[in-house]
């Protein structure tokens, strides 16, 4: 082993960080080389000089107390924070619970106090069902001639419903009927497609503007509602919704 290498390893040797083989190599070199032996003794002297207890700064007693109390404070504030989070969580749960209660109440309240759209759809469905119970219920005027049906309404309602036959598109005008819906007399046109009947309820709209089609389902019936030409329209049928939409489109275009 060279002196250079030995001097490099002397620190590891002094610190007991060398493996056994290297340790023995350094040891034998020190035995043979006076310069390296001196360097080694110098290291051990330095180490013993550093071993003095008075070089060590023990923590003052007051620091211990200070740290202890600051840790307590910190622990308390962490605890407070956790309680704070817990409060938020509780608040969140309360809100969710209130919403759930609201939903349950909503499902339980009598239908009559719900908004009118919902009520109207139900009313129209009932009317539709009733109209189909016996042939006598379905029409007051049985005619596929629009020029017969339209004048029939004169004097019976305070408006002139648009009446048009769509027989060429396979929606045949079947007749007309008077109904009472939404607290007023309304005109009902009955159309037929194959074996399906369509009731089209018409009455004047409060607002002149047109609205797009709204589709709902009640008791297996499809209902389509729209407003146009100053009239409310509700079409209802057991017909599939695609064909009923086709019908609604025809009515809107025919106006």
């Amino acid at each position, binding site marked *: 082993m060279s002196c250079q290498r030995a001097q490099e390893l002397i620190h590891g040797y002094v610190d007991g960080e060398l493996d056994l083989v290297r340790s023995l190599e350094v040891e034998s070199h020190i035995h043979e080389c006076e310069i390296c032996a001196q360097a080694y003794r110098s290291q051990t002297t330095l180490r013993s*000089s550093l071993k003095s207890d008075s070089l060590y700064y023990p923590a*003052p007693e007051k620091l211990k107390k200070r740290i202890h109390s600051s840790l307590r404070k910190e622990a308390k504030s962490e605890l407070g924070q956790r309680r704070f989070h817990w409060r938020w969580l509780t608040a969140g749960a309360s809100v969710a619970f209130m919403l759930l209660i609201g939903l349950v109440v909503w499902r339980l309240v009598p239908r009559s106090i719900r908004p009118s759209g919902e009520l109207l759809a139900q009313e129209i469905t009932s009317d539709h069902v009733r109209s189909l119970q016996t042939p006598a219920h379905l029409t007051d005027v049985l005619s596929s001639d629009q020029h017969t049906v339209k004048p029939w309404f004169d004097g019976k309602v305070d408006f002139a419903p648009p009446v048009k036959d769509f027989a060429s598109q396979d929606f045949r005008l079947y007749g007309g009927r008077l109904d009472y819906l939404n607290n007023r007399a309304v005109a009902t046109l009955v159309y037929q497609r194959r074996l399906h009947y369509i009731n089209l309820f018409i009455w004047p709209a409060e607002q002149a503007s047109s609205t797009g089609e709204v589709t709902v389902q009640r008791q297996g019936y499809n209902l389509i509602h729209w407003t146009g030409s100053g009239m409310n329209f509700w079409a209802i049928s057991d017909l599939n919704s695609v064909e009923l939409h086709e019908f609604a489109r025809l009515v809107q275009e025919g106006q």
Partner: protein
Amino acid sequence: MQKQNKLATFEEAVLPHLDAAYNLAHWLTRNDTDAEDVVQEAYLRAFKFFGGFHGTDGRSWLLTIVRNTCYTWMQQNRSPELHVPLDDEVREIESKDLNPETLLMQSADTQMVRQALAELPVEFREVLVLRELEEMSYREIANITDLALGTVMSRLARGRKRLQQALTNHRHAEVLS
């Protein structure tokens, strides 16, 4: 309840190493009150991060935090200290490597050693304090200082040579005076 347990567990694992924490902080800051402030801050940090401590060596873990807190503190208060041109000094020392003049043959008195150690650049001071005063292994020192094992070894060697040199110079000055 849980927090009380955390505090108790923390104090049990970390509070016994208060002396080690203060000793390191004192050697790094070289000042009583600064060391106290740094240690208190380090304990609060340690408490906050205690959830991330899963080891068994509370002392190494705490000293790592103490050292980091010290460096943050020094950056804010004494930044020039942290910019020592290490390489130049190493060359200077290595050239005198085998010079008997730098060999310390007699035990130096404690006051002199304290002063010489305190005057070492902080990079050498910290490895010497951890090795000689805390008697930590190279591996532990490497973990605390975030240095490679080889760097720890070479810094220890350089630090010791500087210390020997300082003590020898001091003795020469005494003899001459």
